[in-house]
């Protein structure tokens, strides 16, 4: 047999991009379970639907781009994008919202930029932001946790009915019963109440906040698992959560009547999902460890600023996208100091 000639190294660690993606998908399961438990079947249906669409779009576009189909589908990256988008959408988002979202994410935000690894913006967040801007009504009607609709006994809208609701075969009025404002909405549009009053009077805060706490805890679990499995490092999530905690503490201390406490900011909305699953997307974040810290801090601060003063209640998508924009720049200025060099190099001297 002819001997082969290849370049070193001749060993390869048995891990592939697909493995990484599978791990990420696995780590979202606790969050998915918690969402389902508190908000009903909608999230699961959304996620499944999104995944189906994602694979479909991916297959089409890969075909159009004349690339080997199996090879690209096997990397699971489309599935992860769909998963994250599905988790971020409101549980009763109509089917076409998801369809538009997945199309934007896979076809536009990913493949039109050259495919996996080339896209400057996080595809799921591009889709989310676009949907939020285009369809604010559908995108801001979040499901109410079961405690608000059925008290202590666990009961959510039946699976078939949810399916019907999403695909438009059920009277929208029924859905209205199950939807309401999110805690972030409530806090934002409080109509002159002090923070403490909002906490007391608005039901979603007074009684329903536990659901968000639980969901956040589930995402946190998944994130810790991924750090443990070395899928990503601690830097980004720690920087996001840390900076958010610090800035919200400062404002809370300045004026506890007008601002919410840090714990609220860390657990409400998609903070945990964002910190562990979205900001850590390697493709669109900074690369070096120092870069990741700067990137994460940027996101944390932007989240707070947009939540407090921006037009939209939740801010993860915009914060992440804005920092995506800065990532290449951050990379240029956070090159590590290489072995044997007195100082790290900065910027792009010597190159264009």
């Amino acid at each position, binding site marked *: 047999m002819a001997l082969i000639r290849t370049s070193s190294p001749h*060993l390869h660690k048995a891990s592939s991009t697909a493995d990484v993606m599978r791990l990420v998908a696995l780590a979202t399961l606790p969050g998915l379970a918690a969402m389902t438990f508190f908000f009903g079947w909608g999230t699961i249906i959304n996620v499944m639907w999104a995944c189906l669409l994602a694979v479909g779009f991916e297959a089409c576009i890969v075909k159009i781009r004349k690339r080997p189909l199996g090879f690209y589908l096997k990397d699971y990256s489309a599935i992860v994008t769909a998963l994250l988008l599905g988790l971020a959408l409101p549980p009763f988002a109509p089917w076409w919202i998801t369809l538009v979202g997945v199309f934007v994410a896979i076809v536009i935000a990913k493949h039109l930029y050259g495919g996996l690894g080339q896209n400057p913006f996080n595809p799921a967040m591009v889709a989310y932001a676009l949907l939020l801007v285009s369809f604010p009504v559908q995108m801001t009607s979040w499901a109410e946790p079961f405690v608000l609709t059925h008290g202590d006994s666990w009961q959510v809208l039946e699976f078939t009915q949810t399916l019907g609701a999403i695909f438009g075969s059920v009277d929208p009025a029924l859905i209205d019963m199950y939807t309401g404002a999110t805690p972030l909405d409530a806090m934002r549009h409080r109509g002159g109440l002090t923070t403490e009053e909002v906490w007391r009077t608005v039901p979603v805060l007074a009684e329903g906040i536990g659901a968000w706490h639980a969901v956040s805890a589930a995402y946190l679990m998944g994130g810790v698992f991924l750090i443990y499995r070395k899928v990503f490092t601690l830097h980004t999530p720690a920087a996001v959560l840390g900076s958010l905690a610090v800035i919200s503490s400062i404002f809370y201390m300045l004026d506890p009547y007008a601002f919410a406490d840090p714990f609220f900011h860390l657990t409400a909305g998609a903070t945990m999902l964002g910190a562990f699953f979205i900001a850590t997307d390697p493709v669109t974040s900074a690369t070096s460890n120092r870069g990741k810290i700067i990137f994460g801090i940027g996101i944390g601060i932007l989240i707070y600023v947009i939540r407090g003063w921006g037009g939209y209640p939740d801010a993860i998508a915009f914060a992440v996208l804005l920092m995506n924009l800065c990532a290449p720049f951050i990379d240029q200025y956070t090159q590590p100091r290489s072995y044997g060099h007195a100082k790290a190099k900065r910027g792009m001297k010597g190159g264009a």
Partner: protein
Amino acid sequence: MSTQFSFHGGVHPPENKHRTTGLSVQTAPIPAELVVPLSQHIGAPSEIVVAIGDKVLKGQVIAEAAGRISVNVHAPSSGTVVAIEKRAVPHISGMQAPCIIIETDGEDRWIEHQGLADYHTLPKQELIDFVRHHGISGMGGAGFPTDVKLHLGDDHIVNTLVINAMECEPYITADDMLLREHSDKVIKGIEVIAHLLQPSHVMIGIEDNKPQAIRALELAAKETKLNLDIVVVPTVYPSGGEKQLIKLLTGIEVPTGHIPADVGIVCQNVGTTAAIYDAVFDGIPLISRIVTLAGEALAQPHNMRALIGTPLEVLLEAAEINQNALYRLVIGGPMMGFTVESQSIPMIKTTNCIIAASYEEMPPAPPANPCIRCGICEQVCPAELLPQQLHWFAKGKEFDKAKQHNLFDCIECGACSYVCPSNIPLVQYYRFAKSEIRNEEAEQRKADHARIRFEARQARLEQEKADKEARRKQRAADAAKAQAVKKDKAATSPDSDKAKSGEPDLKALKTAAAVSRTKLKKAQKALQNAQDKELDGQDKLKATVAELEVKAEAAQQAFDQAQNAPAPAAPVLDIKQLKTNAAVARTKLKQAEKALDKAETSGEGDIEALRVKLSEQQAKTVAAQAAYDNAESGGVAANSVSNEKLEGLKADMEAALGKVNKAQKALDTAIEGNSPAVEKMKAGVEKLQAKYDTLKAEYESTQNLAPTAAVAVSSEQVADLKADMDGMAAKVEKAQKALDVAVESGSPAAEKMKAGVEKLQAKYEAAKDEYEKAISPLNSVPLSIDLEGLKADIEALSGKVQKAQTALAAAQSSGSPAAEKMKAGVEKLQSKLDDLHQEYAQAGGQLPEPEPEVIDPKALKQQVSIMRTKLKKAQQALETANEQGDAEDLSELNAEVERLTSLHDEAKAAFDAYEKTQVDKAAAEGIDLKQLKIDAAMARAAVTKAERAAKKAREEKVEDLSGIEQQLVVAQQEAEHLNQTLSRFTD
């Protein structure tokens, strides 16, 4: 001392080592045919010294080292040389290279060989040559000739010798087995190296996955007197990379673009040390080595001691290869090794492992996915690079950016490729980018070279033209003068047969000179023609031109001499003539001066030209006067002759200096470019330097012989010298500034620049010296001036030393890796200072003779502290052993502690003795060292106080500033004085 540090990144590939460590090292069969490549090392291939058909004995030299970086090659077994031809050799490119093919006779008959009885008694150079002649080159990595590294002690201060026993690559167990079976050889080999390099500390780095080897090493190391530590480090790839190992063991990073010796470290591989042992103790050249045969295609994987030149198939056969299972044949480890396509290629001195891998074991790399920027590669990179960025740049051919991202610091360890989840062959990209960049640079260099050549040629042509013109003018002037002289003679001494009889001769000579000139011109034209058209035979023409030039000059000289010869015949007349000449010259000078004045005041006319004229006139006047004076005092022409000679020598000297500088510059660029010719160039530079030195010496001695000449032109020369000196000073300052900037920005070139600055400084000092020397006879008080100069030098130097010491202290406290180097620098300065002291003392006899015995108190002190640490460690171990009641260990440890105690005591005693002698010596001079120390400290404090006061005064703009500053100066002097006294007694 075995504090461990860590390097960034690293990976943990499956080790796969156990399969080859079961069996002891077997001796491989002698193959029917040995294929011995001429170039198994980095550097020039060796030169063949045998012919086809020659019978050779085992160990006989078959190829000799060629050049500085090269080693001998020996016949690995006895037999007949049957061919000398190109064969495929183990190389990443799969290339063919010249090999000597020996058909073995199976007798394995040795040539007479013998080790050294006692290598300590041999001069170092001979010992190093011995190593070189035994063909020893690095056996771990690239195969760098070992003797070159053994020379590193010559111009580097080597503090630490690091022995690499890491063997961090998976599969390879050759060093492991070597250590298990021959640790004693390794240690003895280390002793040889330590004898040559004199490091203060030896560290053997070994990974913790080789417990038996560690044990064996520890046992063997008990015997040694070296300050040796076996540092066991965690297993992580690539801890065996030279730079990584150094970081791991010493915490020092080798600055980029430098070799470890620049930071006082030399690295050797254990295999190499064992080979040195074999050579030095048994006279066995490097003709065999241990090689690991591993891989799943082998039924009997194990280590073998095989002859260099054995074809792989013989070894694989011996390891019972299953040819059907063989899929990939790797030489070296799986991380950095390379594949070969043929089993008939030979193993060489650097072949430490052969992996016959099956398909399942090392399947082809899966197709690469796009990079997902996961950043894992960055986490594992031991060089702390950004592999993914480099990959983007290499892929996009943005080589500038790749370089800017330190591509050339990549050690191609493969860690990044190993972990990349997208299976990107990153290392391949880097290799590609590196070779592209190298090619580009080579092209650039070529282009630059051509340009420089062109410009040089242009300049030369112009110069030649100018020279010709000048010569022509000179001749015209000479002729006119001759004419004048003749007329004079005819007028004043009509009856001069002697002169007349000389005339025909004169004519003949003139003709001869003219003829040779014409010939020369013709030849020059031919040469130029040839150069313009780049014809062949230029060299010959050049030689002819040179020859003719000489001839023409000789002829001219003969003519001139003949012309001048009549002069001494009529000295009286001549003196008169000379007097007139001098007077005329003076008048002319005055006229020129006036003209210049006028021009200057009116600002009209060509002032520059006038000035030139003036100075010319001045020179002429001086010459005329001198000639007159000479003639009057009956002085012979000898003076002028020696002057001429002096001039010639000086020109020679300057030319040599120019050459040296040019060579140095070339060397610098070569070093920067990592050119392999560096060593050779260095040697060249040294040779040139030596030549220059001899010339200089000659020049100086001549100068001393002709002091009158020196005095005659001294005022002009002095001015020149001063200008030289000032120019130098400016240069030094500029260089210093550049250096400061470089240091601040942490540029890696700082070191080199420093050297440059030092060189300039030295030059400046030389210029200064010369200048001072030149003025001293003028002032006719040579001794006192010299003394004063020396004193000033001493003061300046001691200031420098102090500054350097503070800097050093700061560096040490901040743990800067440069501290070691700075220390060396400080020591050098100190020694310089001592030299100066000595000189001063000799000149003035004021200072007492400094300590003749050379004892390095720092080293002593260091030794003591090392010993103390070691002792403490051993004691602790003993205690724990005591607690655990491990009897066997206990006795061993006890012995160890005792040994160390005695060593410690010894060192302490040495140090104490040293201190005592110092105190005694001081006492003998009536100085109480302690009191002196206190005084010095107090003086220093006073200086600080005065400084503070001065600073404050300056800030507050106090009136009496100068008074305070005066005080400060006084205090400083006092302190310095005390310090100097003190420094004679302490370190």
